[in-house]
């Protein structure tokens, strides 16, 4: 059973209102019909029980902790008992005549209560039990008798369905609130980190940069952490990636920025279809990976993103050892999977072009240009 959601409270209140209104209706009908009853004297105590139970349940259901099986079962049984007593008090004759039971419409309340507390299935179960009791008590099976039961069943079904929907939307709302809180917390953290940790790390890196040995090493490590942390706190917030949606290419490329990788881009978002953006990012990752595999550690890399009206161009340049153009084409000729293949393949799929320029000792530059669709 679901925890009480904020949307359930009004439903319980509605049940209480219904029960009270039904009680008034019961009282009026009993007063009007009491002359036709087989044992009219006993009708009054039953009416008193009906009234007492109405008051009790109104208070009992108001407390979310009590909306549980014990009370629900008791509610169903008491209501069934009131209804069953009709067979004895009203009498088979009067009931056959079409006189209502002592519950009249009051017996629908526990059925709705079950539907609200447990959803569709519970509602149907209660409706079936109550409907069967109603039919047995009245002991005549015509259209009108069935209609009452069917209506009750439909009401239980509808209310149960409504409660299910309410619960789902309540959960969504809660999740949205949580996410918003998390985002705010992240922004607050980013400000704090910016004001303190980043500055100190940058300072350590700066002051230790000229030192030899362990101190220099510590400064270098501080610098690396500073770069990683900076990317983390200033990272443009990622959007949900959906194949048809447009995403900001920079949300995918900014994370590659580090102590050795500079990412230069326009200030605004570089919007591209999600698939194009992920493929470009994967190609850039392949190029960066290639640099770290083939060049000395500490080789610097510059990534430049240019957003033009008809196309997006991304260049990845390093100041590493460079590749002999002959070797590159040789590797390609031998069918070895390398940079070229992985990058060229991805970009060709997007109808883009790849230019690789390199010379030994002069670093390598990979330029990817992808047309904007449409």
């Amino acid at each position, binding site marked *: 059973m679901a925890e009480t959601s904020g949307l359930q409270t009004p439903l319980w209140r509605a049940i209480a209102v219904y029960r009270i209104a039904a009680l008034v209706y019961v009282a009026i009908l009993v007063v009007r019909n009491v002359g036709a009853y087989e044992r009219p004297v006993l009708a009054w105590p039953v009416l008193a029980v009906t009234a007492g139970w109405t008051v009790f349940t109104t208070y009992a259901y108001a407390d979310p902790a009590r909306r549980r099986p014990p009370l629900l079962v008791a509610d169903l049984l008491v209501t069934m008992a009131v209804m069953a007593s009709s067979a004895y008090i009203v009498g088979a004759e009067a009931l056959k005549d079409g006189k209502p039971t002592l519950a009249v419409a009051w017996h629908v309340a526990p059925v709705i209560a079950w539907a609200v507390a447990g959803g569709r299935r519970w509602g149907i179960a209660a409706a079936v039990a109550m409907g069967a009791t109603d039919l047995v008590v009245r002991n005549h099976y015509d259209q009108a008798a069935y209609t009452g039961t069917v209506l009750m069943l439909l009401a239980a079904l509808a209310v149960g369905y409504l409660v299910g929907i309410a619960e789902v939307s309540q959960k969504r709302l809660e999740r949205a609130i949580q996410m918003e809180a998390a985002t705010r917390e992240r922004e607050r953290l980013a400000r704090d980190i*910016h*004001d303190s940790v*980043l*500055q*100190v790390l*940058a*300072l350590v*890196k*700066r*002051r230790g*940069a*000229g030192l030899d040995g362990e101190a220099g090493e510590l400064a270098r490590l501080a*610098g690396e952490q*500073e*770069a990683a942390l*900076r990317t983390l*706190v*200033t990272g443009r917030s990622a959007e949900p990636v959906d194949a048809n949606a447009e995403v900001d290419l920079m949300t995918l490329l900014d994370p590659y920025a580090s*102590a050795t990788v*500079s*990412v*230069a*881009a*326009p*200030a*605004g978002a570089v919007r591209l279809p999600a698939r194009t953006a992920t493929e470009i990012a994967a190609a850039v990752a392949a190029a960066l990976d290639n640099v770290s595999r083939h060049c000395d550690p500490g080789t*610097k*890399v*510059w990534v*430049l*993103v*240019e*957003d*033009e*009206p008809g196309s997006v161009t991304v*260049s990845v*340049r390093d*100041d590493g050892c460079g590749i002999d153009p002959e070797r590159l084409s040789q590797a390609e000729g031998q069918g070895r999977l390398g940079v070229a293949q992985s990058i060229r393949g991805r970009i060709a799929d997007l109808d883009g072009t790849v230019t690789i320029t390199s010379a030994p000792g002069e670093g390598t*530059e990979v330029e990817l240009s992808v047309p904007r669709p449409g």
Partner: protein
Amino acid sequence: MVVDDHPMWRDGVARDLAAAGYEVVATTGEGRQAVRIAGAARPDVVVLDLQLPDISGVEVITGLLEALPSVRVLMLSASGEQQSVLDAVKAGASGYLLKSAGQAEFLDAVGRTAAGDTVFTPGLAGLVLGEFRRLAVEPAGDDGMTPKLTERETEVLRLVAKGLSYRQIAERLVLSHRTVQNHVQNTLGKLQLHNRVELTRYAIEKGLD
């Protein structure tokens, strides 16, 4: 003059500058105070942290230039928030450096700023390139005042953004080091001029002149 709200950083930078032979005429941690004392302290160069607690980097730069039109501002920031860096450059800053830059790089940048050069990081070059492209695509102002880069300027900026040094760019394009420097400076000048024109137009439209 050193403006930074982080005391440890501020003192460290001031010490480094003093050790390198510069005279530090003032240090402060607040933007408003920086603007107030600039007129009296008369610094040649202001080393400015872009994120100050009281007023925005753009406001500090505008205020400094009003108080002391000849001052040159070298911005530093711990995190490269692209838009605020771009705004600060448009407001008149003459150079930008990440705080993670090494000590030698920093002192070199201060020296170049003092000499009247612009200090560009590859990141800043990317931002400026992007800004010119944005202005070119944007529905142009009716007076056709949209600033444009020449082909050569675009070429130079792209190479800066790709991490080439001015010397490397000069070699590659067969230009003098000075010419490369001028091209870079021009791109910034165009952007700042455009920004002033826009601000003036805005002021006239709003009746604030």
